[in-house]
């Protein structure tokens, strides 16, 4: 098999080269992943916290249901349902751009996993921390805000790193709803140019670079948030 990297410099029919197109697509991948990350973190932190509340059985039930619902259906299927089925119930959602839909789908999907990690992080803290917060006169909300969450988040940075990398990789399903991101580029460009290997290689490399960047960024955050003298007991993470 012979390489033909010149394929990236050829015109794709609309006046830009495949290279330009691929870089645009990379931008979309990062945009989808970035926006979904924000949704996933906010919702995940909230749901994960709700799951650990004492004395609020209905909130706990709601958040458990959320997690089970969003983590037990494949992402591709979820996106499809957001895109085609939900608008049948709420016709106004038809007007939503697919970017927003995909951000919510990917964000909620990931939020279920982040919620699991947040819960694990909170439960990994000694019970005494909660007592200590309450005993100082903090309300439950204040106890979470000032005592529990800051520690829980530090503990779960390693699994959050994996989840963030997973989210980036999972953004590849956005092609299913017409986002011109890397996977769509790969599928389309290899069809047009018949240089599948070169295109896949380049796209794989861009994914790997992005995932690595996320990894480094999180490592930086971890270092920033490191507490002098504190030894973190890890919580494991899986996922993709």
């Amino acid at each position, binding site marked *: 098999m012979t390489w033909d990297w010149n394929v990236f410099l050829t015109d794709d029919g609309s006046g830009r080269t495949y290279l330009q197109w691929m870089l645009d697509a990379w931008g979309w991948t990062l945009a989808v992943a970035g926006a979904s990350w924000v949704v996933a973190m906010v919702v995940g932190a909230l749901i994960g916290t709700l799951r650990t509340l004492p004395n609020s059985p209905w909130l706990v039930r709601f958040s458990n249901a959320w997690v089970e619902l969003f983590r037990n259906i494949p992402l591709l299927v979820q996106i499809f349902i957001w895109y*085609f089925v939900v608008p049948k119930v709420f016709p106004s959602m038809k007007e939503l751009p697919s970017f927003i839909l995909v951000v919510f789908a990917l964000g909620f999907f990931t939020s279920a996993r982040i919620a699991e990690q947040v819960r694990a992080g909170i439960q990994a803290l000694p019970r005494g921390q909660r007592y200590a917060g309450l005993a100082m006169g903090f309300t439950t909300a204040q106890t979470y805000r000032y005592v529990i969450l800051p520690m829980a988040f530090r503990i779960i940075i390693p699994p959050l790193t994996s989840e963030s990398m997973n989210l980036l990789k999972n953004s590849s399903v956005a092609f299913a709803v017409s986002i011109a991101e890397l996977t769509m580029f790969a599928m389309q460009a290899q069809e047009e140019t018949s240089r599948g290997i070169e295109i896949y290689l380049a796209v794989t490399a861009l994914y790997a670079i992005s995932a690595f960047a996320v990894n480094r960024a999180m490592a930086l955050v971890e270092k920033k948030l490191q507490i002098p003298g504190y030894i973190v007991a890890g919580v494991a993470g899986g996922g993709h």
Partner: protein
Amino acid sequence: MLGLDMSFLNWDIISKFVLKGFIFSIQLTVIATIGGIILGTLLALMRLSGKKILTVPATIYVNGMRSVPLVMVILWFFLLVPAGFYALIPGGSNYRAEISAIITFVAFEAAYFSEIMRAGIQSISRGQVNAGRALGMTYAQNMKLIILPQAFRNMVPILLTQTIILFQDTSLVYAIGAYDLLKGFSTAGKIYGRTEEAYLLAAVVYFVMCFGLSYMVKRLQARIAIIR
């Protein structure tokens, strides 16, 4: 309701289109879980061995796999492994996509399982390790009899979560034309012009299976959990 028409999915169609994919998805999940855990445990042991010749390749392998999307790995494996390889497996050339998918999943999931097992092994306190050694056990005996049994039990919930993810990820084998559960539904939907209904049903089936699986394992876990 909602203008959906589920009637097209009768038993005939399910047995023709869906069942085959269902069986393959389950096969793939089971084999990849078992294979992935075995290979992953080996990788974890390599990474924890403290010997450079073992840790470096294992670390590169695990981090490499973890930074590439699964679809890409599936494609790469399928496209780059020479045909001759499949000839070595009995019946291999008939089920190329399927065999390729299985190998890819074992290799890929091993990277994730290895991280879980590594955390599991590290969660066993230094004291337990010392206790085994103090009784005269060799490194291998200590691993096999003391550390791994505890690490596995501690990690059951996370291994389970990973298996659920794995099961859902089997849907990505569409990239190489292997026939899985989702493809079973979507093919039936396409041929009968009932795409939406097929996806909705797929969602329900996946949910029931994943939820059921997690429920079952939670109960199993309660039984095998270490009393503390």
